[in-house]
């Protein structure tokens, strides 16, 4: 599917996504489940992993470059550089382990603020391992509350049963497609003139930053 001949580009948009969260919450499994419809017990990620996924959504051909980072503290200084230029960040926690959820606000949300170079980047909160319903300790409502507070998308899924895995990535991408500034970054060459898009002194600009 590479290098289709002629002028037509291989894809309309290239988006960079990043997956973060504590170690062992199932980031790599989630990614594998999404990219190759498989579930297997994976070795812990060393530092960072990377997958490419092509998909067509809303009539647009998309290429997703998804960076899967290791959750271990030792790797955190390394992974910080992968936040750069990401249009979407997926924050994953394990619904059966409360600390992975609390660490999102204690650690990971702060990391995003610190390292993300993109003001408008879309954040998504994902509660993984809902297949272990009996062991669940973090309720769906808590997840929703967190998402509301931090202004992110929210979904619960299971990498193992593949429940909501597709939706998780698709919803994030749809949201990116809805955000003009992110769209402009992802597209090749299409520039937008912001002075023509909106009056320079729009008063609501301040609200969008927080």
């Amino acid at each position, binding site marked *: 599917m590479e290098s289709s001949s002629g002028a037509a580009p291989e894809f309309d948009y290239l988006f960079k996504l990043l997956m973060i969260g504590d170690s062992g919450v199932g980031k790599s499994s989630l990614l594998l489940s999404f990219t190759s419809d498989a579930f297997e017990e994976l070795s812990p990620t060393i530092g960072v992993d990377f997958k490419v996924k092509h998909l067509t959504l809303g009539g647009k051909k998309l290429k997703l470059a998804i960076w899967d980072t290791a959750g271990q503290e030792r790797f955190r200084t390394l992974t910080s550089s992968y936040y750069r230029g990401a249009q979407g960040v997926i924050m994953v926690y394990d619904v059966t382990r409360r600390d992975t959820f609390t660490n999102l606000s204690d650690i990971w949300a702060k990391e995003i603020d610190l390292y993300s170079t993109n003001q408008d980047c879309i954040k998504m909160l994902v509660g993984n391992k809902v297949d272990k319903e009996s062991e669940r300790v973090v309720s769906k409502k808590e997840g929703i509350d967190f998402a509301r507070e931090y202004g992110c998308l929210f979904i619960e899924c299971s990498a193992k049963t593949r429940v909501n895995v597709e939706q998780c990535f698709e919803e994030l991408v749809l949201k990116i497609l809805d955000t003009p500034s992110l769209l402009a970054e992802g597209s090749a060459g299409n520039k937008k003139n912001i002075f023509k898009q909106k009056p320079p002194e729009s008063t609501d600009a301040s609200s969008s*930053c927080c």
Partner: protein
Amino acid sequence: MKSANNSKGVMEDNDEEEEFEHFDDFTLASSWERFISEIEAVCRQWFADGPKNLLEKGAVQVNQLKDLYTIKSEFKYATKSYCMEYYFTTVDDGKTLDWDHALHDLQLSFGVKEFVVIAPQSASGVVLDAPEASKLLSAVAIALSNCSCLWPAFVPVHDSSRKAYIGIQNMGTVFTRRFEADRIASQVPVKLMHLEGLYELFVSKFAYTAVDWSMNHFEVHFKMKLTYRTPIHDDEDEIHDPDADITGSSENPEGEMHGKAQWDDNFPWSKWYSAEDPVNGFELLAIWSEITAESSLDMAELENASPVEADKWFLSPCLSEYLSDVSDGSTIGFASQLHLLVKALEMSSEAKFIEDFISVFANSGSEALKSSAVVPPQTVLDRVLKNLFHEVAETEINSSPTEHKNSRSIKGAPQESLFAQFCLHALWFGNCSIRAISVLWIEFVREVRWCWEESQSLPRMPSSGPIDLSTCLINQKLHMLAVCIDQKHREAEGQFVDANDSMSSQEDLQSPTHNSSSHGASKEVSDRKDESSDAANVAKPMMLLKSHKIMHAPITLEPPPMTEDMHEERLKAAVALGDSYSFSAQLETEILASDMSAFKAANPDAVFEDFIRWHSPRDWENDENEENGASESSSWPPRGKLSERMSDLGNSWRKIWNEAPAVPASEQKPLWDPNREGEKVLHYLETLRPYQLLEEMVCAAFRAAADTLNRTSFGDLKQMNIKMDQLCITIASVLRIFLAQNTTTDTELLEDLRRLSTTFEHIEKLVLLAASLHVKFLQSPYLGQAIFTDCFNFYLPNMGTSSANAHNDTQREFDKKQQIRSGDRDLIVSMFPPPTANQSWRRVLSMGNLLNGHEPILREIIFSKRDRASRSYYAASSPKLHQQDIETYRMYVSGTSNDLGVALAVASFD
């Protein structure tokens, strides 16, 4: 005259009649009659329309007056053409207009609300001789009375500078008001300079004409408004301290200017430029609203009164003209220099190498380059470099000034960083021409290379820490270089480089009691399985599983710092490999192996499980009931196991563990080579394309300038904070688009950047204004804020649109006033310092009511005499009138001791 009226027949006030107007026969009427009839027709129309309809028909707002509109119509009479204007207000609340409102001259002079003015369409717009004026006035008066309209009508007479008018108003059946105004612009009779004389002038008007009334009572009411202007700090006065007087006043004041404190000395921009104070001074209006005087003596007494005794005080700032200037780049500031920088950017694509811009002058380059040929002399260059590299105050490096939360989103460099400072210097170096920039850059890179060769730490740059990828690439490169220099320096000293915390590692190394067996360890590891919730465990050391010895966290190698282009390369490589091959994080694997080696060296008895407990605590699962620390120490080893994924057979972690030799970090091969990376950075800087340099400079300069302005303290001004936020957001989004187009110069993009500098200019002016007001009202900030809010609301609408429709808006003047609370009067008085002896002998004071020795610049008085209108006299007149007092005489006096304008309105029944 009557015939003109008759010729129109018995016209009723209804619109249908007007339709037939054209069929009236004017053949017998004189031109004068026709003229009156024309005026009448127009007045009728206006009268019938009323304010609402007139507004729809294109009435325009009179400059700067909130509620005054005018509509006009033109007439021809004889050879001249005339223009009649009807001024009207939309709100008729029956209140008399006061001078708290902004009023039209005629409204103020004669105490009228709506009125008609007729004037010839000549160049000066004024009827020059009195007979013509009165003829014109009577024409209008007849026309108005024909349509029983009660509007006063005015005709200007004489030279326009005299502001002389005559006027008449029909006030119902019996009353008529006559108006007259004139002005003496010089050589005012001494008598009329003082309140006494003005009082007598007024009294003489009715004492002379009104024979019906008793001659004994001259009780008049009046209000007075005095305007004071804060003294201008002219330089001559400033330097005239007693000593200077002796040494000779002929001394050139310019020479002493340098030592003098500028108003903006303490503001962040003063390092770069000195701005004109946007607030030139203040005007204080002191108003006595209701005074009654019975004799000249009362007036003489009043003249001695201090304005402090006035009923109301209002303050309005006198703002510098440059605030309302349509931005043409003439005002010097960051914005003007940013404009120049954008110009330099435009030219930067003309050459491939930065050196070309310097050498091109030897063999006469393009015209455009020639015009910007100014390069400051070597001494200036040396001073700039010295400031950049050597005059670094300790505070500048350490303090991270409160950065604007949005400024990080601008891809520039932190305000105090080396590259940001370079950009700010470049803005002012040789007028920011491409040539001056090139000269400065080459010297700058030379200086940076010197630091590298000599292992001197790079000033204004942190020598450690992760590289902030949100900054511009040059800043990242300089940060990288600073880290390399630091590393090189330490290696040269044979000092081991510690990844964790340089302070603690040095302590450990020097500590003689340190366990020698665990070399290369920095500290004992506490059980941090649950660091966030279980604080008790933090203090407790972790024990090795097999040997029950204390676990030591090894000193590990520092991961290599990376700039964004290096990340880009890795990403490209990963994408190139694509899905076919799982991305192997080579570097990360190396780091993990290095950590394992160091761990083994620090803990010779450790097993893989121990490493996992330290490195990836979540992959070690304690048995449920052994969670708490107490039972753990009693029963060793703790029952637990590796997580499923970590204990898999093919686990890559265990593979690496098995292969890793026990080598302390100090003896390991470093993960990166500072010598190589440093040289690469310098190569990048030395071969940077002019366009790339300018691109980065534009971004960094915008951010640094915004950051500098942002450090200005202007008090708590919400709207200003919002503006700063918006500025940062706007800059960030424009620059993001700009950077995305890194191909060639695009005219539209350059236009965007120019517009951005213009936006910047607006904000810059507002910041200056806010700062100026802030320092002037430190004692009562809310007053400063209130005045700023007025200015802000006044200027902002213009600023938003100035680029689009600069010319169709007539220049309005700021005229908002703030009422001063009595508590703040002291502060205002302090703005009027008593004049020095030197000043006072130079001035001739001829008016009273001095404020700290300053006389008012304008005195306005409205005298009025009211008489009860008795029922018997005006039985048939409108019911409104006979119940209340009627103002029979009104005199408005305005001016100074040497410029007197008087307007008189007399109501009479005849």
